């Protein structure tokens, strides 16, 4: 058996199409926004660029979730927590960039701290005025939480529905904590009223386009990392754990270590997604920790196709487009629609959109091969 070069081996048909679409988005959306007249039907208005950027950051969250759920069977109902933590790290950087331009005009303290009569910045805010530090925290905070949480959970062999429940409890606990004003992170209002990022106004058209392109690139890189992991021997062991955990253990694999690596990498990816989300929507508040958000992310992955990576990203975009449209047209119906969607997918499309398409293609190929074989056999007779 010859070994194909690693990059080629990683790219199957779906992956090539996916990366092609991302490349096209990164080029065409800014071009259309900048150069097509507003009257043109192909013109993408700036608000839509940011909306698309938001969908793509959700797609990265879905990808991260698919890595642990689709390939290792870890159904995390708390991935929104990692997303929100990454978002808060970015939000803290953006708050520090406001400087004296806040409503109260304090040179250092954000408005909400002035309002609470705080005299100085809490220690954990230090360093967040430096972008590289904030960027590091976007990875480190969710990664560290996942490492500690995962170490405790996987070492104690918490699996299945019990694990799902404690991940849910984790995000719920964090939500309650972040709601408190004493946390020094803006309480229920969260962090908002951002002005600059890296010296550029967050409202400016150019910045919005740059953030969009950065999100596309992050999604492509996230896909590359996840795809590398799942196609390596490591990925085969992950799938083995998903299919028969104790068998894997009796073969001498340290199942908890394998899960921990996947869970931590996935949490960091979710953190990056959150960090890209915040400047594009302009706010981060504790509701991002709400359990419903994490569950919604699970629905995206289920709709797109669990264990396909591309499907997870597609599911996130499709479901959120539907959500944007429906919450505009019939706001009270959205939650029912989401529930119905989950039931329909579970019953009729258990492999999701991408999984079902792939299966259909396999079947067609199999019948085609059988037919050719049949014809060959007839010819031989």
């Amino acid at each position, binding site marked *: *058996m010859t*070994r194909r070069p690693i990059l080629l081996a990683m790219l199957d048909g779906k992956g090539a199409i996916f990366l092609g679409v991302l490349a096209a988005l990164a080029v065409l959306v800014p071009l259309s926004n900048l150069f097509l007249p507003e009257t043109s039907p192909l013109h993408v208005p700036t608000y839509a660029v940011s909306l698309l950027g938001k969908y793509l950051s959700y797609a990265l969250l879905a990808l991260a979730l698919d890595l642990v759920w689709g390939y290792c069977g870890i159904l995390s109902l708390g991935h929104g927590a990692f997303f929100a933590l990454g978002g808060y790290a970015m939000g803290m950087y953006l708050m520090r960039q406001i400087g004296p331009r806040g409503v109260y005009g304090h040179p250092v303290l954000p408005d909400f701290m002035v309002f609470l009569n705080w005299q100085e910045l809490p220690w954990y805010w230090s360093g967040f005025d430096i972008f590289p530090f904030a960027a590091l925290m976007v990875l480190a905070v969710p990664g560290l939480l996942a490492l500690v949480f995962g170490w405790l959970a996987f070492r104690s062999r918490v699996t299945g529905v019990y694990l799902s429940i404690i991940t849910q409890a984790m995000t719920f606990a964090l939500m309650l904590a972040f709601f408190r004003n004493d946390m020094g992170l803006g309480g229920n209002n969260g962090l908002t009223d951002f002005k600059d990022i890296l010296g550029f106004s967050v409202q400016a058209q150019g910045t919005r386009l740059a953030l969009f392109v950065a999100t596309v690139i992050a999604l492509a890189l996230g896909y590359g990392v996840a795809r590398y*992991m799942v196609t*390596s*021997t*490591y990925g*085969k*062991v992950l*799938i*083995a754990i*998903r*299919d*028969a955990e*104790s*068998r*894997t*253990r*009796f*073969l*001498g*694999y*340290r*199942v908890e*270590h*394998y899960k921990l*690596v996947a869970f931590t990498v996935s949490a960091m990816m979710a953190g990056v997604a959150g960090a890209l989300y915040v400047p594009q929507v302009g706010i981060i508040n504790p509701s991002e920790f709400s359990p419903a958000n994490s569950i919604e992310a699970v629905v995206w992955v289920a709709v797109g196709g669990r264990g396909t990576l591309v499907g997870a990203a597609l599911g996130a975009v499709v479901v959120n487009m539907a959500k944007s449209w429906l919450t505009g047209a019939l706001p009270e119906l959205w939650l029912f629609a989401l529930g119905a969607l989950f039931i329909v997918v579970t019953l009729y499309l258990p492999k999701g959109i991408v999984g079902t398409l792939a299966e259909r293609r396999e079947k067609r190929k199999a019948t085609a091969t059988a037919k050719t074989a049949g014809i060959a056999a007839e010819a031989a007779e």
Partner: protein
Amino acid sequence: MTSPTLTNTVLYLDGVSVTFDGFRAINKLSLAIAPGEMRAIIGPNGAGKTTMMDIITGKTRPDEGEVFFGGMIDLTMLDEAEIAALGIGRKFQKPTVFESHTVADNIRLALAGARSPFSALFGARNRIAEERIDAILSTVRLTEHRTRLAADLSHGQKQWLEIGMLLAQDPKLLLVDEPVAGMTDAETAETAHLLKEIAHEHSVVVVEHDMAFVRDLGCKVTVLHEGSVLAEGSIDAVSANERVIEVYLGR
């Protein structure tokens, strides 16, 4: 026959007991397996056969007693992965293979070698592995199924694949739990043949219900009853033992 001493055994259990919620699943069990030996373990349901395997492989910790591997390694202090790394392979009662992997990949994952996530992420695949995989697949009669998904195999083929995975681990001791449950007569005979082949190079402990199969194996038999050894000897000797007939064979 001289009584086995600790140093010349591959597996040595002495006075092992374990209790679950007041139920004594294993009761002062003592057992010694010599290197290269094949041993069949029989006994009625609830005699403690599977619990005994759980203890040897580190899934269950005994309340008291000693379990030694190769005369010097105390297995009660180790977990499953460590025990597997020492060279004890286990086949489950229900065939347990990786259904979404191909037959060859199932064997590949079992092959002896580095087991850490980092070597799995960044290590290159090794070519010698392919030859080992071919050799094992031919031993377990699955060569023509190499590229099929394990999920598509028949029940008997899955049992063989799991035995192949054990071989790939290259263990010093194989624990095989009811390998012929649900097999056709032809498959059963074939499996007896296969296990005898394997026993040339490994110590094998087989837990089984099927008496015809145990007879085919032609090895020493240990009868378990209520967590301890009731009788030990050749199949003819234990079948003639009155207490064995009373608790097990007579039913």
